[in-house]
């Protein structure tokens, strides 16, 4: 029996579009989802730019009775899960026995902040009865399970900016262990709420203009939002139903720096990359593309470059490295899912998305970052890096199928 895990469905709602074909088309065109921040509270915010999901009207996706139950972060997860499941062609019993593991860094902030506003600002003494079921960090996972009829293991994984990658890896483990044959998995976040934006402002890492990963004039990260969901299956299950297979999810690497709550360590990141390669049975020479964590902060970009060099050795000079955050921003708990989807599509379309907004290489950034122009090239195997605050690292290796 093969223990291989394959990818059979993709779904996303992102600053680059309400579906995965739109997401990919934008990546190919180098079209950015970063723009002037829209919404409430603008006058009270220092942060002026963000990568927001545009033209999303919940009424187009949900019935009037469903909407009150769904925080924005759960709405995103359901929209992406619907697309991924439809793309996979899975229905009924196969889904019923499956798993859903959903990453989120923030949970239902819209709901929580609205509740605190009601209490602290409006001085009301009671809250909306759905505050808990809407806002809880596991709400998105539960809603996805109900949407898809999934009755196997369903839970949330939270590891800040690595949440989606860690969630996907848990799904791989569930399939490899034989607990399930099918998993609907990825990440979701909706961080454009006043309190959360204020908290990010206070950390002084947000860019005043745009995201320029690995560039000398990088000015910090740009927050994003949305959800990315993939359908994973055991190879046997997918082949038995003649499913379209995008690629093999061949390796998983996880590590923790155990060092600092915000500063990343190259050693920890390199360890996760090396573990993913080893798990996949891939040599460094076989990796053609790295979808970088690439946040556009000094702390990440230099450390990640060092980590790629440490883990890939001489291959680091040959590999194409790009950060698609230059277009979809940093969607926190959804970031790893956006980037996994970009990695899978880079393999299946033989095109590597660019690092946009690239001016000149920053200090300590000496790799081939695929600046500003996507590159047509065969990608046999690739990795997607996710390195979270608190030193939580997750790396996924994907191989063409």
């Amino acid at each position, binding site marked *: 029996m093969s223990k291989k895990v394959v990818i059979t469905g993709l779904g996303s709602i992102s600053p680059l579009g309400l579906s995965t074909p739109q997401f990919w088309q934008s990546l190919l065109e180098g079209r950015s989802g970063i723009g002037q921040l829209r919404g409430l509270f603008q006058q009270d915010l220092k942060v002026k730019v963000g990568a927001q999901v545009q033209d999303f009207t919940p009424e187009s996706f949900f019935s009037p009775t469903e909407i009150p139950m769904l925080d924005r972060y759960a709405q995103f997860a359901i929209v992406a899960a619907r697309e991924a499941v439809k793309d996979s062609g899975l229905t009924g019993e196969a889904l019923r026995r499956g798993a859903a593991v959903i990453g989120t860094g923030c949970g239902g902030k819209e709901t929580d902040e609205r509740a605190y506003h009601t209490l602290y600002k409006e001085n009301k003494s009671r809250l909306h009865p759905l505050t808990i079921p809407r806002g809880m960090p596991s709400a998105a996972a539960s809603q996805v399970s109900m949407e898809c009829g999934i009755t196997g293991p369903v839970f949330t994984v939270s590891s800040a900016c690595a949440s989606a990658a860690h969630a996907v890896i848990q799904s791989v483990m569930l399939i490899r262990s034989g607990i399930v044959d099918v998993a609907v998995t990825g990440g979701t976040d909706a961080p454009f709420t006043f309190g959360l934006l204020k908290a990010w402002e*206070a950390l*002084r890492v947000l860019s005043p203009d745009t995201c320029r990963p690995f560039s000398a004039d990088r000015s*910090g990260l740009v927050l994003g939002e949305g959800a990315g969901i993939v359908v994973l299956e055991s190879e046997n299950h997918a082949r038995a139903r003649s499913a379209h297979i995008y690629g093999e999810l061949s390796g998983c690497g996880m590590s923790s720096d155990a060092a*600092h*709550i*915000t*500063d990343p360590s190259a050693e920890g990141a390199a360890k996760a990359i090396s573990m993913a390669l080893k798990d996949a049975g891939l040599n460094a020479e076989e990796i053609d593309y790295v979808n970088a964590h690439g946040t556009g902060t000094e*702390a990440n970009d230099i450390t990640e470059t060092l980590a790629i060099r440490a883990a890939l050795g001489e291959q680091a000079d040959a590999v194409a490295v790009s950060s698609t955050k230059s277009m979809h921003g940093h969607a926190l708990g959804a970031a790893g899912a956006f980037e996994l989807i970009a990695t899978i599509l880079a393999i299946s379309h033989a095109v590597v998305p660019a690092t946009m907004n690239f001016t000149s290489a920053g200090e300590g950034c000496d790799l081939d970052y695929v600046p500003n122009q996507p590159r047509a090239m065969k990608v046999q195997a690739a990795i997607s890096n996710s390195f979270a605050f608190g030193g939580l690292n997750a790396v996924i290796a994907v191989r063409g199928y």
Partner: protein
Amino acid sequence: MDQKIYATVIKAIAQQKRIDASSIAADSTLETLGISSLDAITIMYEIEDALNLEIPNESLEKLSSVQDILDGISQLVQSKA
């Protein structure tokens, strides 16, 4: 040097690092005081609060000594006046 600025900066550093204010001199480097980037943003937050200022993100990038902080804050206070 405005005494209020000096006192505010030294107090913010002393509080954040839990060290005696007398052990901090203008020429102390942030490195010798063990001030990390997270310490720095917390110290700036306290100074902003105490002096009712807004310290731009860019101004944190070139700080290497207590004197740099004092100079930067003095400039901000003057430009505000």
